[in-house]
């Protein structure tokens, strides 16, 4: 399996609101960030939540967001960032 993204790539988190067990926080959906690490392939928790263990694995990335991007009313320093681990199928190329 090849990774769709590499370190340094700019991405947008999918702005989707499906049912089921979703580990991508609501507040970050639709926000822009940068890949800082490719963490490897893991079972997809959305499938595991249905008791399915043999679904295709998904690449997990560490993505960095500006706090100001995540929280528009953030009043801390501009350079503050937030790192989240997000699965590939929740990311789109910017």
């Amino acid at each position, binding site marked *: 399996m090849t990774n769709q993204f590499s370190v340094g790539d700019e991405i947008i988190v999918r702005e989707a609101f499906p049912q089921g067990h979703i580990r991508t926080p609501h507040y970050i959906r639709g926000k822009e960030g940068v890949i800082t690490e490719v963490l490897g392939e893991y079972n997809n928790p959305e499938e595991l939540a249905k*008791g399915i263990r043999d679904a295709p694995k998904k690449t997990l990335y560490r993505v960095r967001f500006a706090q100001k991007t995540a*929280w528009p009313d953030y009043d801390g320093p501009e350079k503050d960032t937030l790192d989240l681990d997000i699965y590939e199928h929740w990311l789109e190329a910017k």
Partner: protein
Amino acid sequence: MPNRPPPRYHDLGGQDAGPIEMEEHTIKPWVRRSDAVKSLLSDKKRRFLTTDETRHELETMGENLYFGLEYGERRMIALMNVLTNKGLLSQEEIDQKIEEIYARLGIEKKIEKSA
């Protein structure tokens, strides 16, 4: 951003959380035990359930239960729901066991049957 629904009740990121309780709290023995049972049921040898299945139960049990119960209690309910949904345990078996435990401890209280 059109049609952006509010977060579901368990998705708390960004909400005011109030003050942090700084007091040490003890974990009740039954909470430890039920967590151990869950770990054994989902280990590589048994694979009866996944942690994400119990998380999904927590996220669909409704906010009254989710916020009304203590951490260990709602996890116990989630585990029970997963096991009964899979047919590994029946509600009758669980109720019967609870009655047995009440009897053993000499407690009169009967379980309230859910409607």
